[in-house]
């Protein structure tokens, strides 16, 4: 039996038996430290002799650049935008993630379909429809959900980059200013993520501690995933 499976309808021309690597997802809202931990995990895994591919959203060769522009221009409608993201994701899945898994890499991905679905739901897309559309995605070996409380998130964002238009959900006209909008938008996203915990088997990682503490926790969990042999239950 193959290690991997699909959520819904399968991708054409994929032999699951060939996929030998590991697919590990880091999820969480903006500013929670996902990219920092991906960097640290990659370093640590490579030091231990594993080949690692790290990948993230809107970086596909096919649509990445144009998607970024579309986001800046705000001219596309909600459904169009959701599908544009899905196209970008499919390109990365087929051309980066699957080949790497075939070659036995450990794939660390900064967000996966969950963020895409949460953002689309908040913007009015039908959750049932999104689940079907993303049915072609591979089920990951592990999904680590970096969770913080909204107050901690605000502090972190202020200390780093400040509020950003999209991370504050300003396109949704939810508040008077960026702070108010950010809090409402991120709370809403957190609620959407929390709904997914059980459905998709997220492992919750408390991300409110120091970088060292959180990394220690993540490393132990990743070690377990990498040590697994054969197929999963």
């Amino acid at each position, binding site marked *: 039996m193959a290690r991997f499976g699909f959520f819904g309808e399968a991708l*054409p021309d994929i032999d699951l038996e060939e996929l030998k690597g590991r697919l590990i997802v880091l999820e969480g809202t903006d500013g929670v430290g996902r990219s920092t931990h991906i960097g640290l995990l990659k370093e640590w895994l490579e030091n231990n002799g594993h080949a690692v591919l790290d990948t993230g959203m809107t970086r596909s060769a096919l649509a990445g650049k144009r998607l970024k522009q579309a986001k800046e221009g705000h001219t596309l409608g909600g459904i169009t935008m959701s599908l544009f993201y899905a196209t970008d994701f499919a390109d990365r899945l*087929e051309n980066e993630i699957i080949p790497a898994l075939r070659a036995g890499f450990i794939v660390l991905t900064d967000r996966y379909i969950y963020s895409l679905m949460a953002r689309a739901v908040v913007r009015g897309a039908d959750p049932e429809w999104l689940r079907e559309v993303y049915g072609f995605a591979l089920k990951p070996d592990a999904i680590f959900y970096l969770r913080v409380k909204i107050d901690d998130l605000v502090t972190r964002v202020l200390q780093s980059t400040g509020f950003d238009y999209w991370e504050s959900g300003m396109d949704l006209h939810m508040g008077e200013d960026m702070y108010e909008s950010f809090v409402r938008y991120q709370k809403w996203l957190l609620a959407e993520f929390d709904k997914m915990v059980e459905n998709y088997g997220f492992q919750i990682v408390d991300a409110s501690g120091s970088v060292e503490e959180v990394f220690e926790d993540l490393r132990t969990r990743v070690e377990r995933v990498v040590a697994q042999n054969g197929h999963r239950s």
Partner: protein
Amino acid sequence: MYGKHRLPGRLFVVEGIDGSGKSTQLMLLKKWLESEGYVVYFSEWNSSPLVQDVTKRGKKKKMLTAMTFSLIHATDFADRTEHHIIPPLKAGAVVLADRYIYTAFARDVVRGVSPKWVRDLYAFAVKPTIAFYFRTPLDVAMRRILGGRDAIKYYEAGMDLGLSDDLEESFRLFQARIIEEYEKMVDEFGLVVIDATRSIEEQQAEVRRIVTEALMGTKKTRIRRWLDLASLAKPSQI
């Protein structure tokens, strides 16, 4: 989703393989509807340049898989729906579309995409008032195409499927499979079949008859009211 919405306008779409004559029939229908005084909106594939750009680039560089081919076209179609189909339908116009979701269902399934998945993908599409399917034997269509048209393109010929190294032969094999998919959809979606081997005039007469019935279902369209107002505004005769 949109399929369930009740929009005051009417949506007529034409489907069929290349060379079935569907575009000619749609053009003739448009002329007639306009002469009858309807507000007609022709939904062209002029979607967002950003999405178009990705599609073009993907095709040119042959970097599309069955899946990304399907998704980028769905993205394009969503843009068309949100900008060029829903608004005129809300305004009560008669919207005409050359090719619709059935083209995607046929083409993507032939490329190996799951039939269920692609149908779910397009769940946001507006259900057409009538979808005409111009049924044409492959030989007839091939003769029409090879006669008048420029070179067949790579994806149009289904060259990515590796059916044949010869462009024309690949096109023929690909279109034969597309026809099979269309035939399956006739019952599934209640496509209205037009025998496209008959004369242009005969086909058009049948299309107009069917469209007339579908338009009669509407008591008074907004267009009608708008026309009434326009006639009120005419200078009175002395």
